[in-house]
C-alpha cells in the first residue's frame, strides 16, 4: 500500500459517501454525480488492488496478515458493484442513500486495510 494514496482514497470515499447519503435523504434519485462517486470509489479500489499486488515486488511488504488484507480488499471491491447494480434496478432516493452508505463502508474497510499493512499493535 502507498500511504498518501490510501489517505486520498479514504477521504474521497468518506466525503463522497456523506454527500450521497445527504442527497438521498433530500430525495434525489441516483444521478450522474452519485453514480460517478461510486464509480470513482470503485476505480480507486481497483488501483489499490493493483498497487497491493505490485508493492511486494518493490520491497513494500505488508507488516500484517496478507490474507486478512485481501479479504477486506476483495469485499470492498465487490460493494460498489453490488450497490451500483441495485441503483440501476430501482431508481429511487433510497438507492442514493445505499450508494452513499457503501462508500462510507469502503472508507472504513480501506482504513482497516491501511492498519493491517502498516500498523502492528501486537
Amino acid at each position, binding site marked *: 500500500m502507498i500511504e498518501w494514496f490510501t489517505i486520498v482514497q479514504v477521504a474521497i470515499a468518506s466525503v463522497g459517501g456523506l454527500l450521497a447519503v445527504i442527497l438521498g435523504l433530500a430525495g434525489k434519485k441516483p444521478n450522474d454525480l452519485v453514480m460517478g462517486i461510486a464509480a470513482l470509489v470503485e476505480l480507486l479500489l481497483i488501483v489499490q488492488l493493483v498497487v497491493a499486488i505490485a508493492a511486494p515486488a518493490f520491497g513494500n511488504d505488508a507488516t500484517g496478515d496478507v490474507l486478512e488484507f485481501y*479479504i477486506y480488499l476483495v*469485499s470492498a471491491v465487490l*460493494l460498489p458493484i*453490488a450497490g451500483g447494480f441495485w441503483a440501476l434496478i*430501482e431508481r429511487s432516493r433510497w438507492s442514493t442513500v445505499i450508494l452513499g452508505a*457503501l462508500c462510507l*463502508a469502503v472508507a472504513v474497510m480501506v482504513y482497516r486495510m491501511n492498519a493491517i499493512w502498516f500498523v502492528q499493535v501486537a
Partner: protein
Amino acid sequence: MAHDTLAPAPTTRARGVGRVLIFVYVILALAATGRSVYEFIAKFDEAPFAYSLSAVAAVVYIVATIALIAPGPVWYRVAWIAITFELVGVLTVGTLSLFLPELFAEASVWSWYGMGYLFVPLVLPVLGMLWLRRSR
C-alpha cells in the same frame, strides 16, 4: 401473518427505506463472513470460543439478509427469528465481554456490543424489528 399473502402488489420487503436496511445487512453479513473465514483459516486454535461465535454471527446475518429480501410469510417469520437471535446475541455477548473479558481475548463481531463495527450490530436488529413490524 396471513395478511401478508392478501396484499396484492408487494411481493418483497426489499422496497423503499427497507432497501437501505437490507443493504446494511448485506455489508454486515459480508464483513462478518469475511472475518470468520479468516479466523478459521488463520488462527482458530487461539480462541475457539470467540471464533465459533463469529461464525454463528456470520450465518445469522446471512440468514437475516436473505429472509428480509425473500417474500412470503415463512420468510417473514424467519426474519423475526434471525433478528431476535441477533439482538439477544449482541446483548449477551456484549455483556459477557464486559464482565468476563477472558472469554473474549480475541474480539468477535458482538464483543462490547459491536463496538468494533461502530455499534452497527446493536442498532441494526432494533431497526430491523421496527421495519418488519411496519412492513407486515
